[in-house]
């Protein structure tokens, strides 16, 4: 495979052209999330409406995507988010990214807006835009099948949007390989706003390591660590992520009914253990993944993948729903219609609270079931309405913050920067609250998964109730994650691997001059540039680096973590300082100089 390139797609002009990658940017920002962020920062006009033709939609692989390093199949979608108004960078696995790598392109930059629906077909270095009028309105599964048939190559890979993205739902995702999602921050709506229905890729190149012998030894060591690690070698392969349900529920930090409580008596009914006994039919791996956390499931009338832990919680306990069947069904609907499951669940739960407290009037439901916590019918019905952007579902499809604002009570939206929170209560797990609050893409657990030390005890056990030391842990996790997200590898490897392992893989695999320290510095640079992007787009740290009032002022009412509130107020000032930012959360010139950011 020749040197990796970039493909620029101008949908307004209907043209495609190849460009070389910027080698300085690769050196400084690696690829994936980092390269995409640099590109967006340099090219996007400040203040651009995320759903206008001025926004840019970037698909970026890491240098190791498509390689034989463990989990080397990830790609990142970077754009300005229509949900948060800040940077979006949504990661996905499956096989699409690896196939893109085989075409010789590391990144795609999609600009402008097509006059009519189109899809992009990339076969090796050739790319063309094709009419997608007949695909518009189809769900992600039907779209994938139709595109594969039309390009005439069943081994091609397809990333596409469903009706939610077409109709500009701000919580719409991009689905690749039918079941994997670049889920968060509404990236699917940006694709829809450009009238781009799908991107099909097929390549014939193969990965060539910079130093094959060095990589061989690095892989031997890395694979051994992954195999011997309790999480990557046994826990995730055996149970997937769903086994976390019971752990978090036992700790009383498993949010229930839109974070009104944090322990759910019925959670066992949708736990990983229950899933294994009932609807589980198999397990799946993404490209080059030795872990295989994916779960295959089947209902009586359909089958699919998932739900993962986050989805079980978002569509389950957060909506007060116990049973697996409706959760699995709603998960399938999200994947088919193209909705982010975390934000979908967070929006339905907010709608349920708004309805139960009398702020959404019954007449607004039309013929739909009442939005009551625990109602499986409501969960399935309103997920579908949201995905189809119909009726009250049209309002819900804009996410919980805009829904709450519309009905006069945005305080019931459990969001950071208007993005719905994941499945860990930051009142009972202090460090993850810091990650939520300062995450550049809005509430997110995988910008720095402090659950690993705070709950699981990896690499060492930290007390989830205390704040001391969490700022330092947060910064290291945030920097390391930014680097992993830029490499093309999956974050789950970090249960077993450390910064030095990733640096070695990038060094021998992609010829990058990195060690553990410079890898973390690259992560720091990426995080800081995301911050600069957000500040340029109007981020007010005092207003935006925070948690919902409920989590700051309402203690967990009962259970093991009873009485706990989030104390981000004591962690954030320390975190800013460690980052080299001023007390207002703005990177200091000296820090930018240190990182080589101009």
């Amino acid at each position, binding site marked *: 495979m020749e040197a990796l390139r970039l493909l620029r797609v101008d949908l307004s002009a209907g043209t495609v052209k190849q460009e070389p990658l910027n080698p300085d940017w690769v050196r400084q920002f690696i690829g994936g999330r980092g390269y995409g962020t640099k590109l967006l920062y340099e090219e996007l006009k400040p203040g651009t409406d995320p759903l206008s033709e001025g926004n840019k939609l970037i698909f970026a692989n890491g240098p190791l995507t498509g390689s034989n390093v463990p989990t080397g199949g990830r790609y990142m979608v970077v754009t300005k988010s229509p949900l948060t108004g800040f940077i979006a960078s949504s990661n996905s696995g499956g096989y699409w990214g690896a196939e893109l790598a085989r075409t010789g392109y590391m990144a795609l930059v999609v600009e402008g807006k097509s006059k009519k629906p189109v899809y992009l077909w990339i076969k090796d270095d050739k790319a063309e835009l094709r009419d997608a009028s007949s695909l518009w309105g189809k769900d992600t599964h039907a779209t994938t099948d139709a595109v594969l048939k039309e390009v005439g190559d069943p081994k091609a890979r397809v990333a596409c949007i469903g009706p939610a993205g077409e109709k500009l739902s701000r919580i719409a995702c991009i689905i690749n390989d039918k079941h994997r999602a670049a889920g968060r921050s509404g990236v699917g709506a940006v694709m829809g706003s450009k009238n781009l229905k799908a991107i099909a890729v097929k390549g014939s190149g193969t990965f060539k390591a910079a130093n094959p012998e060095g990589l061989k030894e690095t892989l031997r060591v890395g694979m051994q660590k992954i195999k011997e690690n*309790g999480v990557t070698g046994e826990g995730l392969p055996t149970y997937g*992520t769903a086994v*976390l349900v*019971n752990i978090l529920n*036992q*700790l009383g930090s498993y949010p229930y009914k839109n974070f009104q409580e944090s322990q759910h008596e019925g959670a066992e009914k949708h736990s*990983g253990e229950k899933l294994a006994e009932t609807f589980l039919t198999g397990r799946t791996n993404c490209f080059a993944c030795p872990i295989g956390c994916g779960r295959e499931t089947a209902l009586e009338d359909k089958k699919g993948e998932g739900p*993962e832990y*986050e989805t079980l919680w978002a569509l389950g306990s957060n909506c007060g729903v116990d049973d697996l069947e409706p959760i699995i069904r709603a998960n399938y609907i999200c994947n088919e219609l193209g909705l982010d499951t975390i934000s979908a669940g967070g929006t339905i739960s907010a709608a349920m609270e708004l309805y139960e407290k009398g702020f959404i009037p019954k007449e607004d439901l039309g013929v739909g079931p009442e939005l009551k916590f625990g109602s499986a019918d409501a969960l399935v019905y309103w997920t579908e309405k949201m995905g189809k952007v119909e009726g009250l579902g049209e309002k819900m499809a804009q996410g919980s913050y805009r829904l709450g604002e519309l009905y006069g009570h945005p305080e019931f939206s459990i969001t950071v920067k208007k993005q719905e929170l994941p499945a860990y209560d930051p009142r009972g797990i202090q460090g993850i609250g810091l990650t939520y609050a300062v995450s550049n893409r809005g509430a997110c657990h995988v910008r720095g998964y402090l659950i690993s030390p705070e709950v699981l005890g990896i690499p060492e056990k930290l007390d989830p109730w205390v704040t001391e030391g969490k700022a330092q842990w947060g910064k290291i996790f945030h920097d390391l994650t930014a680097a992993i997200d830029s490499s093309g590898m999956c974050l*789950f490897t970090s249960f077993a691997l450390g910064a030095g392992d990733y640096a070695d893989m990038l060094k021998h695999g992609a010829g990058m001059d990195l060690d553990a320290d410079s890898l973390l510095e690259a992560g720091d640079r990426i995080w800081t540039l995301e911050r600069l992007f957000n500040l340029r787009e109007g981020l007010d740290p005092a207003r935006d680096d925070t948690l919902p009032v409920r989590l700051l002022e309402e203690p967990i009412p009962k259970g093991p973590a009873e009485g706990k509130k989030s104390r981000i107020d004591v962690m954030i000032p320390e975190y800013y300082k460690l980052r080299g930012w001023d007390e207002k959360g703005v990177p200091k010139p000296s820090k930018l100089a240190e990182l080589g950011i101009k």
Partner: protein
Amino acid sequence: MIRVSFFGIVREIVGEKETQVEAEDSVADLLEALSGRYGIGFGEKVLKTQERDLDLILILNGRHIEHIGGLSAPLKEGDHLAVFPLVGGG
């Protein structure tokens, strides 16, 4: 009595979701009693945990034992111990 709940692969090893055990002095004593009851598979898990403190997640009344005395954490009548394998996720 102490209520003990099992999860994940541990549940498969012991073959039941939950059991009751006569009150023991500490978590370590309780694990030893359980090893005697459930045999080699469970015993191996426990041994690994005692050596490396990694292979099980033990939650006593909603708190990870690491923060309440580790394996020496004292037990009292009516306590609830949840026994998980080491797992992870996102």
